[in-house]
């Protein structure tokens, strides 16, 4: 693990802290998630490091449990977006012709509707459960991944080594997963970091609007929503999730940058 730049190490450390906190939330959190432990909007103290929220629950506990939900939903949605988007994008590029036309125009159609509005409409008619939330977010985000992976794959698809594979008689699956995917990884990895952060912002926005994660479950967007009135009285509780989102965004992208450098190396990402 030597030769990793300081920025990437820092990013990894902070990201790891967030993910570990999310993973072991019940062990780390000082209080119960929906336990009322004090007065409304108590300032930071020894007992409550970040103070309490609008109902008198411990804010640090809420943040840890909230991070758990937010990070889980965002990761799962990103995973869905990448699997769907990349496979469909590569398929469109490899088959070309009318298959490509139908898929690409369909994708344009979905993209032409603003994501947030689309999500609001869908979520207002469907029951808001975590799996549905993840699927909706993932599918909407996959349109972006589709465009990127199709564009990248179209370029790779005309290279001689892909033609050589076709002349050998390889099927489309080999061409997609063995010839194109490894060469399309660098831009996809860069996009992965970015998409994950957008997913966090997206789920937070949805929760803030009341269509995301439902109470009593905590999530960062929900914490902002619950505590937004406090800002008027100078209570910083609503800003804490915002700081968490910014910190996580930056550190994930530091790691993504480094991963990008590694995969661009022609030694197949083994060097470094």
């Amino acid at each position, binding site marked *: 693990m030597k030769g990793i730049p300081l920025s990437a190490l820092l990013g990894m450390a902070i990201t790891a802290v967030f993910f570990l906190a999310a993973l072991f939330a019940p062990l780390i959190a000082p209080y119960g998630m929906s336990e009322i432990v004090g007065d409304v909007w108590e300032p930071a103290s020894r007992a409550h490091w970040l103070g309490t929220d609008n109902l008198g629950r411990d804010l640090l506990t809420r943040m840890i449990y909230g991070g758990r939900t937010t990070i889980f939903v965002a990761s799962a949605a990103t995973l869905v977006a990448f699997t769907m988007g990349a496979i469909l994008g590569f398929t469109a590029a490899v088959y070309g012709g009318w298959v490509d036309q139908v898929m690409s125009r369909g994708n344009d159609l979905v993209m032409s509707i603003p994501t947030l509005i689309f999500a609001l409409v869908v979520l207002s008619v469907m029951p808001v459960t975590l799996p549905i939330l993840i699927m909706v977010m993932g599918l909407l985000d996959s349109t972006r991944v589709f465009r990127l992976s199709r564009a990248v794959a179209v370029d790779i698809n005309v290279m*001689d080594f892909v*033609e050589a594979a076709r002349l*050998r008689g390889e099927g489309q699956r080999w061409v997609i997963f063995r*010839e194109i995917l490894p060469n399309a990884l660098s831009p996809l990895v860069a996009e992965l970091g970015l998409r994950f952060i957008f997913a966090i912002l997206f789920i937070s926005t949805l929760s803030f609007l009341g269509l995301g994660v439902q109470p009593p479950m905590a999530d960062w967007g929900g914490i902002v929503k619950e505590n937004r009135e406090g800002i008027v009285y100078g209570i910083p509780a609503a800003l804490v999730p915002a700081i968490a989102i910014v910190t996580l965004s930056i550190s994930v992208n530091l790691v993504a940058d480094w991963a990008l450098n590694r995969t661009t190396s022609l030694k197949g990402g083994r060097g470094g």
Partner: protein
Amino acid sequence: MADQDTLLDIRNLRIEATIYAPGEKPRDAVIVDDVSLKLERGKVMGLIGESGAGKSTIGLAALSYGRGGIRLAGGEIWLNGREIRAAGPGMLRRLRGREVTYVAQSAAAAFNPAKRIMEQVIEATLHHGLCSQAEAEKRAIELFRTLSLPEPETFGKRYPHQVSGGQLQRAMTALALCPHPDLVIFDEPTTALDVTTQIDVLAAIKNAIRETGVAALYITHDLAVVAQVSDEIMVLRHGKMVEHGTVQQIIEAPRQDYTRALISVRSIDHPEATPTPEPLLRVQNVSARYGAMAKDVLSNVSVDLHPGQTLALVGESGSGKSTMARVITGLLPPRAGEITFDGKPLPPALNQRSREELRQLQMIYQMADVAMNPRQTVETIIGRPLEFYFGLRGRKKRERIQELLDAIELGKGFADRYPAELSGGQKQRVCIARALAANPKMIICDEVTSALDPLVADGILKLLLDLQKREGVAYLFITHDIATVRAIADSIAVMYQGRVQRYGTKTEVLTPPFDAYTDLLLSSVPEMKLGWLENVLETRRMESAGN
């Protein structure tokens, strides 16, 4: 201070670059080591060597310029009695494009496609304030005439995409000569051109050099070309000087082994085999076109390839050679005609062919670096056909890979390498091994040596012939290089504008009387003789006068 006649005096030049290899500490590499040369006014010196020899780097150093990351680390460069290696940017700006100019290899990439040719040809002259626009244009038109460009008066009004590659290369020469420079650097000006075009450009450049009395550094890897235009030749290898002398001395009495190897390149002697009664591949009356194009790219082509022999397809770019490969491999189903392989008709489209039919017919590409997946190791690249066609796994597969690596004369350590860790020649060898892994009856070689240095290409050709003898594989060899054809072919098909112009055994095709195109093609191949260019042009002039 040097004497008056010396224009360029490079002394003990040392050029370095820092290499940032992935996963390694940056290290310094010496690109050019202790090279000295002296060029008198009005003389032409040829710099010759394989890629990586540092010839372009030295050429650019004469403008005191180093491409990205290159440092002119030591030594002196005297131009017109001034030291310019350590000169400041102000002085260099006054010097470049005025006293020294540069002609790049790819004129198409060097011209701005959005501006007319004239504007670009006189740009440097006007920028340096050498004369008025009217005078500069007059000078440019004169140069166009000297370079025998068509309609010199109006030639400059065209855009770069409206003229041919050879004309653009000549326009670039006009661009370089326009500001009356003392020195022009020609960096492989004819390498990207067809032989039939190359000879015209070469003649034009030579004529222009003589008329303007300019001195030149002529950089190329083709000794036969440089022999036509230079007074002196310097042979370079790995950034060091190998030999320096007059053209006559280098060609007729080379002192160093390396120079001798360069001169005797393509001296492979391949006795021609006689056609067998039953051809392996029979192409009958094939016509093909791309998409909705109105014109056929191939029209009514018929050729035979006999088992274990080599059929060479020769012709300039656009003659349909590569389309022929696409038709035979099934990438482009023909519009008409039939292809028979091994006695059975071959289905026209790739996806109708059986795995066995695909296995019998393999292909090697021109650009080995893009013909291999950069993310696969050599073992995966060679191993995949073994797995795919023969179901080999584990130890058996590894043994066969080793056999193939031995067959292409690469050692043990190569199996784990990635393509980026191989040299150009090694890459092409791996591609050959990949084709061989399928145990094919026939391999299509599409310009397999044209991206390689002469000596490396020679090695590849010898390897191919050797493998043919051992494995009995037939080659369809697509090339524009007549010397290669002479070296390896059993029969030849000369292609021109999508038709087979001349077809037969090697002796038949290469023995006069020739048809007009074959004559033009054959006589355009540079020969390593002094005065070859003049002789050819003289003969052609006499012939056209006689007609």
